[in-house]
Each structure stands twice: as structure tokens, then as C-alpha cells.
């Protein structure tokens, strides 16, 4: 059974059909890639899954339950975690504080109890701090726990963001361009981390990603969107060589010499990786 599933989700904004009959499945232990040119509806699909947008038709299912009508934070409580394209962190706070913010649902006391300073809230806070540190340790970010987020380089921020979402204890991680702003080496390390997360915690992952070598290495299955429609799906290699996909990315016939040159370049990138 798939953990996360969208069934023929369609959404319109005014006259623009942002997504048409998008059906995606993420199975247990699976890492799924979503690719497509800019404006293909990838982030829109994520927004329908996490609840920022309600599809005009179609349903979103999580562990077999229809969650289409739930609000964003309710979906998080069920086990959906998500990162953002432009880094979703509280910039004025430290890395550790960000993780503690993400453990909102694990803080088992009322706001009022917290405000009045009941003794057990102090104990819970201590426990949350320890838990945050454990997550940071796993992500190899232990030594920047006290650093304020605002000053960190972009690539590190992306890792902190993944750590933050992990702290919400998700069953499925939705990653929106996790490797953007990273060099090839950093991206490779990110791939290691993702595979590690799956192995250690059994987290299923769906990620929007442009970095082809990363997608080919870690993804079990890939969906390619274009103009809000599903263009192709299948194993990473199949999708990458799919003529429609190549055309969508390059806007030209696949036998065009420029396209061939571009393909060769991509090929080379994959090999060097």
C-alpha cells in the first residue's frame, strides 16, 4: 500500500490550469522524484499534498485515509513533513530553537501551562532540547546548534531545514529542491543522508529536484510534470531518456544537434558523479 497518494488532482487558478489529473504514489521505503521544467506544477502538487491548496477535484490520501479536507497543521500531525524551495526556517532563532519549534506537537503541555511556568513544562523543555540535539547529531549539524540561522550559508540552511522537518517526526518527507544552492559534492552528501534516513527511520521521501545525478542515484521512481500534466513516469533511467521529457526540457526535437550536445553534457555529468 502506498503511504501517500494523490488521485487525479486538478487545480485551477482563474483561467490557468496549474495541475491536471496529477496522480502520484509514494510507497513505503520509497524515494520518489518529481521533475519537470519551471512552472510545470511541481510545487503546486506539493501545495495540494500539504494543504495550502485544495484541489478542485481529486483526493489526497495518506496511509489510506482521505486528507483532502484537513488543514496544514493537521496533516503535519499525521506525519507529513515538508521543506520549502526558499528555505522555511525562523531566521532570527538559533538552529536548536528551530528544531524545538518543529517539535511543537511533541511538547505535551498546554500553552497556558507553559506561560505560567508549571514545573513539568521545564522538564518537557529539557527533554525537547535533548531530542533536538539528537536529531542535529544525526544530521551532522551538532556543532552549529547555537548558531543563528540568519548567518549560515545556503547549502547548510538546506540541511538544517531537513533536520527541522525530521524533528516533526514525519512518515513522509516532501523535499522541494533540496540540493539547490549546493555544489556537486554537497549534493552527493545530501544523497547519502537521504538514503541513510530511509534506512534508519523507514521514512518515505518525495522530492522535487533538478539535479539529475542526484535523482538518478537515489530515486526509485520518477514522475515528470509539464504544464501541469503528467508527461512520463517510471524508473529514473527510463524517464530521463523519454523523448517527451527531453523535448519538454529543451523545447526542441531530440535529434536536433544542440539537444544531442546537451544530452552528451548531461551524460558526462552523471558519469563524473
Amino acid at each position, binding site marked *: 500500500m502506498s503511504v501517500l497518494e494523490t488521485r487525479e488532482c486538478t487545480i485551477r487558478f482563474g483561467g490557468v490550469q496549474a495541475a491536471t489529473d496529477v496522480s502520484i504514489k509514494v510507497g513505503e521505503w520509497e524515494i520518489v522524484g518529481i521533475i519537470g521544467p519551471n512552472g510545470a506544477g511541481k510545487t503546486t502538487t506539493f501545495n495540494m499534498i500539504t494543504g*495550502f491548496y485544495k484541489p478542485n477535484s481529486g483526493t489526497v490520501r495518506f496511509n489510506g485515509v482521505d486528507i483532502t479536507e484537513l488543514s496544514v*497543521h493537521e496533516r503535519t500531525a499525521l506525519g507529513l513533513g515538508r521543506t520549502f524551495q526558499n528555505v*522555511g526556517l525562523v531566521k532570527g532563532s538559533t538552529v536548536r530553537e528551530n528544531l524545538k519549534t518543529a517539535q511543537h506537537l511533541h511538547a505535551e*503541555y498546554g*500553552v497556558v501551562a507553559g*506561560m505560567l511556568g508549571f514545573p513539568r513544562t521545564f522538564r518537557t523543555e529539557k527533554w525537547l532540547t535533548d531530542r533536538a540535539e539528537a536529531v542535529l547529531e544525526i544530521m551532522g549539524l551538532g556543532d552549529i546548534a547555537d548558531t543563528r540561522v540568519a548567518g549560515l550559508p545556503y547549502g547548510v540552511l538546506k540541511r538544517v531545514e531537513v533536520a527541522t522537518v525530521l524533528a*516533526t517526526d514525519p512518515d513522509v518527507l516532501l523535499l522541494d529542491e533540496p540540493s539547490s544552492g549546493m555544489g556537486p559534492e554537497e549534493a552527493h552528501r545530501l544523497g547519502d543522508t537521504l538514503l541513510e534516513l530511509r534506512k534508519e527511520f523507514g521514512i518515505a521521501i518525495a522530492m522535487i529536484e533538478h539535479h539529475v545525478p542526484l535523482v538518478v542515484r537515489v530515486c526509485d521512481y520518477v514522475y515528470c510534470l509539464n504544464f501541469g500534466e503528467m508527461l512520463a513516469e517510471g524508473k529514473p533511467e527510463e524517464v530521463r531518456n523519454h523523448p517527451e521529457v527531453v523535448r519538454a526540457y529543451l523545447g526542441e526535437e531530440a535529434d536536433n544537434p544542440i539537444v544531442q550536445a546537451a544530452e552528451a553534457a548531461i551524460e558526462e555529468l552523471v558519469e563524473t558523479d
Partner: protein
Amino acid sequence: MATEVTPEADETALVDTPDEHGHHAQPHTPSTAGWAGRGVVVLLISWLVLLFPLSRDVSDLRLYGLAVIYAIIGLSLNVLLGYTGQISLGHQAFVGIGAFASAYMVSVQGQPFFVAVLVSMVIGALQALVLGAISLRVRGLYFALITLSYGIMAEGTLFNIEKYTGGSAGQAAPLPEPFETPHKFYYLCLLFLAAVVWVDWRLMKTKGGRALLALRENPRVAATLGIDVKLYTLVAFVVSGVFAGLGGALFAHNSEIVVSNTYEFRLALVFVIMTTVGGLRSRTGVIVGSAFFALLGYLIEHEYTFPLVGWHLNIESLLAKLPGPDLTAELAPLVLGPLLLLITLIQYPGGIGQQLRPLTGWLRGNRFDIHDRGDKEVVVADVRA
């Protein structure tokens, strides 16, 4: 990210020269003398707040009481302006309604003072809840306009319902037993301020505060972290409303009478200015800033004498010598306030809290570092909310 500790790295750590940002690699542990010095400063501040007022006369004590009450109101506004990024230009109504409610409960209903304070806090919470519900729909400038209209509306209508407010004659609000002298009441106000500081501190150290900071920065991110954005926006408004209601009740009894024209729009303006100049999200800053604005009129009217040199200084009479219209002490907050606000926005977005940071950091056991700007960054965009 593992940093290898090489012998050289160790050596530089021992010397501990500050890096380009002026940060030291190692936490500082003050010597015994260092702690003693800090102790002396803490004692001086405690003396100023706790013992000095004992020797002053009654009219001064009302003023000090007002300074403490302003601090409570500043902290109330800080919850909205600092933690949620929402402005309230109608806070005079929150405070005023709290004041009238308490005076009414005590003078007309004959209820004990503490019941009256509780009623004021509940009424403050309810008003804030309504305003908070509106803020979920309308934000920024238009929300500011709504709070502005609400404040002025309350001023013109609610404050003049004869039955509850005593009309233009006002309502008596006696000093409560067993705090029946201005001196005792001052200490009661201090106790309430301590309670407000405690609640505010614990709020920001627990999940509620973290939720507020996250949703101020980005409601979408907050929601994906499992935070109920609507609920926590309302929580912030209610907390602010409770603080404002409490401030209002104390305001009433501190002056022993409530008259509607005390709580006019000018007051709301001063509240916003004192909170921002004090420093958003800085408790110390907000308290100092609020107290400063409460005492400003007095500082200007006061006749300073320097017996050794035989000098007399009165700022008001100096101001009167300036050409142009007279600047009375009453208008001072509205002239000096915007000037200080400009300096805050341009030079010190963290307000007084940021400027005091070298001192407060030192008191906490850090090195005295004049360039210390604290770990809480207040961006100018915040204050322009």
C-alpha cells in the same frame, strides 16, 4: 562539520582574540571581583527601584506607579508588535476599558479590588479576541486602521456611558486595602509587573512563544511545522489583552479616579512609540522605554537644582525661550517620541534594549563588549510593520 582540533587551533583559543564580528571563541567566566562588580550594579538598580521610592513623597509615587503601569502596557503591546508583528493603534481603549471596568466593579458593585482586576483582565481578553479574529482576515495597514477606529470609537461612545463610567465627572477608583497608600500601591504594581514579566518570559521559552515567532516570520512554514496558525494568533491577542486590562485596572487605581479624556488617542500613539523605542522583543528595553515615556513629562517640568554651584535647570522654561509655539511638557512625548523613533528605525532597530545590551550582557556574566548587539536580531522591517 567536524572541526579538527589542531595544536594551533588550541593555542588561538587560549589567547581568545575576537573574530571579525567581535565574537569570542570561548565563553567568559568572570572572576570573583567581576561577579562582585556585577553584584554592586544589581544592588544599585534594586535600590533605585525598591528603596529610593520610600523616601519620596506621595505625588512622586503616583508617577513611579505610572511608570510601572506603562511598563506593563508596553509589554502588552510588545506581544502584538514584537511577537506577532501586528500593530494596535487602539490600545488606549484596551487600557481605558480595563480602567473603567475595575473602577465600576469597585465603586459601583462594591467588589474587592482583586476581583475587579480579574474582571478587567477578562474583558481585555474578550476585546482582544474579537480584534484577533479580525486580524486573521485583515493585516498590515488596514488592520492598523481598524484598531485605530476601534480605539477612537470606544473613546467617543463606551467611555461616556454615564451608568458605567460616571460620564464626564469620572468614576472613583480608590486605592485598595491593604495597599491604601501610594507607596504600598507602587509595590503592588511592581509585583504585578513581575508577574507579567514571568508570564512573558515563560511564554517565549515554551512552545507558545516559538509558535508565535515562527508564524510572524512565515505562517506557511509555521503551519507545516504543525502549528495552528489561527489558534496561536488568537493566543497572542488574548495575552496582550489580559496584560492591557491589568494595566488599565492599575492605571485607574493609581490615579484614584477614571476620567474618559485620560484615555485618548494620544496615549495609544505614545504606547506604540515607547514599545518600539524600547526595543521589540526585548523585555528590558520595553520596560525601560515605557518607564522613560511615563516619566518624560515630569523630567521636563521638574526644577533641577545643583546646590554646589547654585544652578537651577528647568527644561520647560528653556523650551519656552525657543521661538515659535510653546512646547509644553504634555506634548513632549509626541515631539521627542517620533525623533527617538526615527533614531531607532535608522540606527538601532533593537531600540533601548539593543543599546543596553553591552550592560545586560555584562550583568549576565559576559565580557563588557560595547559592540554587543545581542543574539536577537530586530530587523528594521519589523518595526515598520
